[in-house]
């Protein structure tokens, strides 16, 4: 299984090595949990049955004073374990952002683009952002874009509206967009985008109240029919936990509680992510 949405923001070894790392976690990303040794990350994956995790940085230094993990830190972690798949983030408003993305993918071995307009404070339809999408298209990588509500302080909710992405989705049909957090609370808007556009994927990392299983039961079985996932969107959903905002084991349990068929779960938990990343994590059966 692959977790498509994690943030390496509580790793003790990095707090010892990088002076602003803990301040970034507390003040920019905003999370109160204790720092943990890297070993805990792997153990959290193990108990959840996750083989590989996508690590996401956010290049928000211009807007927030500090980046939420750097591309270099993500690449460093990927160098320590093949269980990590690193994404790159750039600030689209900085000159040379597209070149910086190329370098992160080609020289650091990172596998995708991560952007968060709310935390990075840019307009999703700024022509400079489209230059970055153009580079991502040429590189053949997926773009995971924050949609929905952000936990980070000072972030405007409106910048997470999934429909803001529609012009880019239309303009770059060969770029696969992964809408993080299923766009919550605009889950129908995000679902409609995925129905309409084959280059739109949804990650399951939405959890903002109650318990993960309760949250999933409401949104995926009551607010929308489970048949929407099972029949129409099964090829466009990837499992994401948003660890460490929630433990991975709880999100795996939540997705498995929905009563999806084994074939559909296999797509959500593995093969859709493999397809997006151009990898295979185990031999085909």
């Amino acid at each position: 299984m692959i977790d498509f949405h994690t943030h390496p923001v509580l790793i003790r070894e990095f707090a010892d090595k990088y002076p602003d790392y803990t301040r970034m976690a507390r003040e920019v990303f905003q999370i109160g949990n204790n720092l943990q040794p890297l070993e805990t990350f792997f153990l959290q994956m193990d108990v959840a049955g996750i083989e590989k995790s996508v690590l996401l940085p956010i290049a928000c230094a211009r807007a927030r004073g500090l980046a939420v993990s750097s591309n270099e830190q993500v690449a460093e972690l990927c160098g320590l374990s093949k269980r990590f798949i690193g994404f790159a983030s750039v600030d689209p408003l900085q000159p040379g952002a597209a070149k910086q993305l190329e370098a992160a993918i080609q020289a650091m071995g990172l596998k995708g683009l991560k952007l968060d307009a709310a935390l990075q404070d840019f307009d999703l339809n700024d022509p400079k952002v489209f230059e970055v999408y153009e580079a991502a298209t040429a590189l053949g990588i997926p773009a995971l874009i924050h949609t929905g509500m952000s936990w980070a302080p000072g972030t405007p909710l409106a910048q997470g509206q999934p429909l803001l992405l529609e012009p880019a989705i239309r303009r770059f049909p060969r770029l696969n967009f992964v809408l993080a957090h299923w766009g919550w609370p605009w889950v129908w808007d995000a679902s409609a985008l995925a129905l309409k556009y084959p280059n739109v994927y949804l990650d399951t990392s939405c959890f903002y109240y109650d318990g993960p299983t309760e949250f999933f039961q409401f949104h995926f079985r009551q607010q929308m029919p489970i048949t929407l996932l099972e029949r129409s969107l099964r090829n466009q959903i990837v499992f994401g936990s948003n660890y460490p905002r929630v433990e991975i084991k709880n999100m795996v349990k939540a997705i498995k509680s929905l009563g999806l068929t084994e074939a559909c779960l296999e797509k959500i938990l593995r093969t859709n992510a493999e397809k997006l990343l151009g990898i295979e994590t185990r031999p085909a059966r």
Partner: protein
Amino acid sequence: MIIKLDKVKVQSRKAEEAINITPQVDELVEKSGVKNGLVNVMTCHTSSGLLVTEGLPCLEEDILTHFARLLPEDENYHHRRYLDFDGRVGFNAETHLKSILGGIQCSFPIENGKVVRGSRQTIYFMEYDGPLERTYMVQVLGE
């Protein structure tokens, strides 16, 4: 009077786990130099515990199984809410309640430089929300 405090890290490896820490407590008492006094052991967390029982795997399993029966995950807990200051949802009420139910500390007398325990008594660090690196405190007081 000697008062010595140690903070000991323990890495849990499962979601729930009973970890025998008796040897570590014994060693810290012996190293403290206290011949006669008291040792207090306490977890630093609110979703883990510290308890004393007979050191048998069957009992370890029974504790975790029956705590889970008494405090099921799918109960209606008020704690399951948006905690903006924490950047998370507080969805682990049952683990906090297990910590309260099983307790968070234990004390033993020290005599002639050694912990005085019943022959069956084993000290367990109880993980209710792992895997995590945890910390427990061992404070030795005496002469």
